[in-house]
């Protein structure tokens, strides 16, 4: 038995390498220079997370508005993470989806509640993709410095993914002023300020609304993982005419791109969560002794664990394809399809893995004290946001072009 345990430990280091092999293949850049930068980036995230108290720190943050650590958000800003996708002309790093995913993936392993996807990918993404240069110049530095943690308010109904028709929120322009009425649901990210989509006389528009705007009420909803989303009501909220982030076709394009980006970034986060919880579960299977042996020696559990590994590997494959598509494919429809595919797969696999992880930990897994439940709850939240796996499967099943094209 001693030898069995010793061998398992010797294997553990290789197994850790084996895990990172798969996400390396999906995430890291391939040329030497990019690979170096990515490796360093990843190490920076790991160091910050280790120095900040690891997974346990979220126990002190959950359920307490805003549900994440503002000083840490500032540190992330100082490291440049909040400006990763922002064009250099506005002070950002001008990097792409791959770099965003590397950070998100690593943060996922630590269950970091800081709203990187909601704020950096989604809200900031909508602003820099819009067409209002003076607004970009005003807002982007504040977003990137961590002073202003914004949220994109596009969703109005539960189970909704069609951002193009926000018919519960209307914006009317009169002279130099825009009046917004309506409501938004499930707005992820901090309520410092909102990028709001609304229908108007000229089609959809996207507007900047500060968090303290008169007539705006933000009601926090505590989510399963202890973070918060907001329900918003707008009663004659007035903003200056130059608060338009984007309008008409530009608004559609900006939102589509930002939401697609966010879906891929969240998928990377989900992959990180899967890897961390699988690793923890394997350690438990190796350590927990019953009937005179580590329970990981029992074939039934071995087979369950392998099936979880397979689910993780397939998710890694889908993420790899999504990142490659976003780097090399300009066609918006293909990008949207890749985003749906990866959000579907990573959500589905992550749910299966975290759910099984709780079970495999026995009664301990069902306690609050055991960390494994924290992974499950985070996945439940991320699965539900930006369309859960079932929703994306339905959407893809209605994409006749994709259905016929998926076959050579």
């Amino acid at each position, binding site marked *: 038995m001693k030898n069995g345990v010793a061998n398992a430990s010797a294997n553990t280091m290789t197994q850790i390498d*084996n895990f990172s092999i798969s996400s390396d293949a999906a995430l890291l850049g391939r040329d030497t220079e990019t690979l170096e930068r990515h490796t360093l980036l990843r190490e920076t995230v790991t160091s910050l997370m280790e120095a900040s108290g690891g997974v346990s720190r979220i126990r002190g943050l959950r359920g307490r508005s805003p549900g994440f650590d503002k000083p840490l958000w500032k540190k992330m800003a100082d490291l440049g993470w909040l400006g990763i996708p922002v064009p250099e002309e506005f002070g950002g790093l001008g990097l792409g989806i791959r770099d965003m995913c590397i950070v998100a993936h690593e943060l996922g392993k630590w269950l970091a509640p800081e709203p990187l996807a909601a704020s950096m990918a989604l809200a900031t993404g909508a602003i820099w993709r819009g067409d209002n240069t003076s607004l970009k110049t005003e807002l982007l530095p504040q977003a990137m410095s961590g002073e202003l943690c914004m949220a994109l308010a596009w969703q109005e109904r539960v189970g909704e993914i069609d951002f193009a028709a926000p018919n519960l929120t209307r914006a009317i322009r009169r002279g130099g002023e825009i009046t917004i009425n309506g409501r938004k649901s499930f707005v992820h990210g901090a309520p410092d300020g909102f990028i709001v989509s609304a229908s108007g006389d000229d089609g959809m528009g996207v507007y900047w609304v500060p968090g303290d705007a008169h007539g705006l009420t933000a009601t926090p909803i505590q989510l399963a993982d202890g973070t918060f989303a907001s329900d918003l009501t707008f009663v004659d909220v007035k903003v200056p005419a130059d608060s338009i982030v984007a309008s008409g076709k530009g608004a559609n394009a900006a939102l589509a791109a930002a939401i697609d980006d966010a879906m891929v970034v969240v998928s990377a986060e989900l992959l990180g969560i899967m890897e961390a919880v699988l690793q923890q579960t394997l350690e438990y299977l190796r350590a927990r002794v019953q009937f005179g042996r580590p329970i990981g*020696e*029992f074939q039934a559990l071995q*087979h369950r664990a392998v099936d979880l590994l*397979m689910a993780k590997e397939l998710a890694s494959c889908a993420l*790899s394809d999504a990142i490659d598509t976003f780097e090399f494919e300009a066609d918006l429809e293909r990008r949207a399809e890749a985003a749906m595919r990866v959000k579907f797969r990573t959500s589905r696999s992550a749910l299966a893995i975290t759910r099984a992880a709780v079970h495999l930990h026995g009664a301990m897994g069902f306690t609050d004290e055991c960390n494994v439940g924290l992974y499950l709850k985070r996945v439940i939240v991320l699965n539900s946001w930006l369309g859960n796996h079932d929703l994306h499967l339905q959407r893809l*099943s209605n994409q006749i072009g994709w259905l016929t094209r998926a076959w050579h």
Partner: protein
Amino acid sequence: MDEFNRGTDDEFRGKVRQFLADHYPPELRNPIRRLKLREIREWQITLSRKGWIAPNWPVEFGGMGLTPRRLLILIEEQERWGVAQTPDMGITMVGPLLIQHGTRDQQEEYLPKIIKAENIWCQGYSEPNAGSDLASLRTEARVSDDHFVVTGQKIWTTLADDATHMFLLVRTARGERKHEGISFLLTPMSAPGITVKPIVNIAGQAEFCEVFLDNVRVPMRNLVGPLHGGWTIAKSLLGFERLFVGSPKYARHALTHLHQVAVELGIGDTPRYRERYAELILDVLDLETMYARFAQIVTSGKALGPQVSLLKICATECFQKITNCMMELSAEYASIAPSHNALQAQATDVLSSFYRSIPPAIYSGSNEIMRNSLARDVLGLATAR
């Protein structure tokens, strides 16, 4: 020299397509069952004459000498064209094995005849009592002067009734470690004492056989590698095989067939069907990317690690998921007995695909055995003693 490795990948691809268009019998494209030797013989002879019969062998032994990358391209194109598997393990197994482990005499005796398609080989490994636990095999080879006397039985020997020769694993010593007493032998099927009995499978086809060996005399010179060293030799061939058993081609073809069936049944546009179809497309897309990752390892000249077993499980279970779906959607069509001899799939013959999806999860290491080794070698979960 390097006729086939020259030029660009696309040029090579074009060459392969042209070759297949020029020479492969159109009526044999995408057969739904394994072909008998007589059915594929003409194609085999053509391959031999054109020098295309052994893509994976070095040029000096009569092969095409393809780089791993070009070999994968060739296989991709063959799969795309629907080329049938040639029922000869001489090319895929015996050749590479003798090239690696055989004596000069053995190479000269056997390799040219494989290239000329004169000798057809089958594999004698599994026995009634030795399937997953192959190392417990009992077919005995007693040493007597300059030859072995072999007695025992092999089973699941694919196309033994078409083969002229067999390579087999036999027990030459009993001891504590059962795999250390196994030797690798070669024998003509015409050797006295060999009896072949085809086994009919549930699809009504006799594609594998029992092979009985009753005091069969095998000359000592037919021993490959060291005495008692057969197990290592048999395992050394695993390389490409481990990639191919996980090929997404079965799942891909099944998916195309599924859609044809749905259209034929008039349900191709229903939301219920489209959702099932979309889910299976997503499965196959991920499988293809997984396969590409492992193929990339092979083409870059590196060795496949134990993770590759994941591919086999994934590919075979995905195939089954698709054929299960086909059966469900086909209602009464699923219950019609398929023609035993049909070569091409009838639009609504889903039962043949369903049957064909059964063996891959069993052979080449059952999926349960694969899970055991993944748990041990990749996840670090020790094996119970």
